[in-house]
């Protein structure tokens, strides 16, 4: 398959995270390859979003390493970490657009802070990012004036403002109708294929996973480990793990069925 190559852009090594005595995941290792759409899967409360926040350097892990192009984010000093984080684009679950700014201003903000583009060039770049996510004409809209799906697309445009090497998306399809969700999946695919950007997506929306994912890992709440790795099709058709089977076939727990 064209696209994903074998070199890893991020390596997660023996990562453990806990809040007090509550261990979220324990001694987890995996790698994200350059140019792929990598999906972190799992049931509610298994630590998917926590994993993403640790990977982007928002939370310090209890143990382990995260190597971005062989640079360890965990042990890096603040300045180095900020330099690495500038190469990340992050879309949060709620979109997290700044409510007091128009969509164009939201996308323009990172350009103002971190580039030496002339003012009209910043506008042009920001507008082109909005066009890439099909928000042409909405530049002067405020976040409160657009729908949830549009807000998520605008958040992707802002995350792409500095043309990051890797984009992290937290639950991009959550709360969206199937049509809007499918449109967002197409946006992700076209950005991944055209720009060669690596995507790390946290989700548990099955249709979305089968559309966008090159590879997935599945976290398990009970064991705190990765219980499956592979393509979505491999996990659906060949996994012998009962939880993975349940997840991909949307089956309730037996005791819940009889309850």
């Amino acid at each position, binding site marked *: 398959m064209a696209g994903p190559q074998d070199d890893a852009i991020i390596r997660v090594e023996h990562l453990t995270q806990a809040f007090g005595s509550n261990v979220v995941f324990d001694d987890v290792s995996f790698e994200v390859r350059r140019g792929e759409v990598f999906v972190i899967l799992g049931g509610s409360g298994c630590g998917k979003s926590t994993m993403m926040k640790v990977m982007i350097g928002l939370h310090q892990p209890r143990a382990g390493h995260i190597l971005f192009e062989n640079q360890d984010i965990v042990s890096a000093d603040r300045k180095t970490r900020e330099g690495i984080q500038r190469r990340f684009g992050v879309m949060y679950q709620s979109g997290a657009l700044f409510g*007091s700014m128009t969509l164009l201003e939201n996308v323009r903000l990172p350009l103002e802070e971190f*580039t030496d583009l002339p003012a009209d*060039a910043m506008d042009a770049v920001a507008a*082109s990012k909005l066009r890439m996510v099909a928000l042409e*004409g909405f530049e002067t809209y405020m*976040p409160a004036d657009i729908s949830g799906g549009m807000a998520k697309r605008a958040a992707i445009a802002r995350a792409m403002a*500095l043309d990051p090497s890797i984009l992290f998306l937290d639950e991009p399809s959550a709360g969206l109708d199937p049509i809007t969700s499918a449109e967002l999946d197409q946006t992700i695919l076209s950005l991944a294929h*055209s720009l060669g950007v690596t995507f790390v997506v946290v989700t548990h929306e099955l249709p979305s996973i089968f559309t966008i994912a090159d590879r997935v890992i599945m976290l398990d709440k009970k064991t705190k480990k990765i219980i499956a790795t592979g393509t979505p099709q491999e996990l659906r058709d060949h996994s012998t793990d009962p939880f993975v089977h349940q997840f991909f076939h949307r089956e309730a727990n037996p005791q819940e069925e009889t309850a």
Partner: protein
Amino acid sequence: MAAATPQTSQVERSDEGLILRGRLDGASVGRLWSEASRAAAEFGGGTLVVDASGVDYCDGAGAALLIALRQNRERAGGAYELRGLRDQLRTIVAMAEPSAEAAAPEPPRRENPFEALGRSTFQAFADLRTMVEYVGQLTLALASAVRHPRQVRGKDMMLVAEQAGIGAVPIVALIGFLLGLILSFQSAVPMRQFGAEIFVADLLGISLLRELGPLMAAVMLTARSGSAFAAEIGTMKVNEEVDALSTMGLEPMRFLILPRVVAAVLVVPVLAMVMNAAGLFGGALMFLSLDFPLVTYVNRITDAVRLADFVGGIFKALIFGIIVAAVGCQKGLGTGKGAGAVGLSTTSSVVTGITLIAIVDGIFAVLFYVLGI
């Protein structure tokens, strides 16, 4: 694919137009933008050919540059041709291109000054109506709570009372102490010229117990707790928690507002007394420094201050408490959308609370004078 050595990004003029080389990314486009735009603008008639065969990488920023060159050329009435860009990079430019057939949505219309005036007036009346309704509902809820005290959620009320009352004691005591000290010092200096410094105690006692103690306690409550009520309920409104309460059939008035108002009513008189005591203590220190014995200070205070002054002050504090909590909660409930709206509600609760306290204090002053209190 053989890895080519990346070239330094640069723009060159040619007979046909421009030649772009190297990487067109966020880091290089900032440098190239002005130079490329100037070269394109200075190019004469005919078709401006942008030769991008030497471009080995192009991201969103590079695409924006190529699009801007085309748009500027077309706006100036000239023709444009992009030549030699690799197919994969062309896809990126195509994604960032304005679509010709996309029906641009109507931009949000800006209202003219007359419309703005009309809307503000309408909003002011709507706010007034909401306020009147709110005061009515609150009065009924308070009256109902007096008749049926179990309606007030005791646990919530105690929690608020602890945060707004006990939590405020140290700062109220400190402010009261400084107030007493400064007030007595500032009045002692001119009064000494007339040999009247002994009356500092009278001045301090009456002004603190009757006026400044309750007033300052209420201002402190507004700043500490009224704003907190507005921010807390405002955030709940933004997160749709208030809607969730309503749809569960639980009245926000009983669940959110009543516990806060009752707690404030209970704690403000106590805070006023703390303020009074701390102020009198600060005044006592000042009085002692004027070489008067403590007993003189105590005698002057007890002679000058009547029970009515103290009771009137505490009664005012009680009314101020209702105002502070009611305004804070009302501003919280009226919060719009987004984080900015919570900030506006919080600011508005403090400004409105302090303004109303000052107005009501003035009304009390006239009322007490007329009643001879």
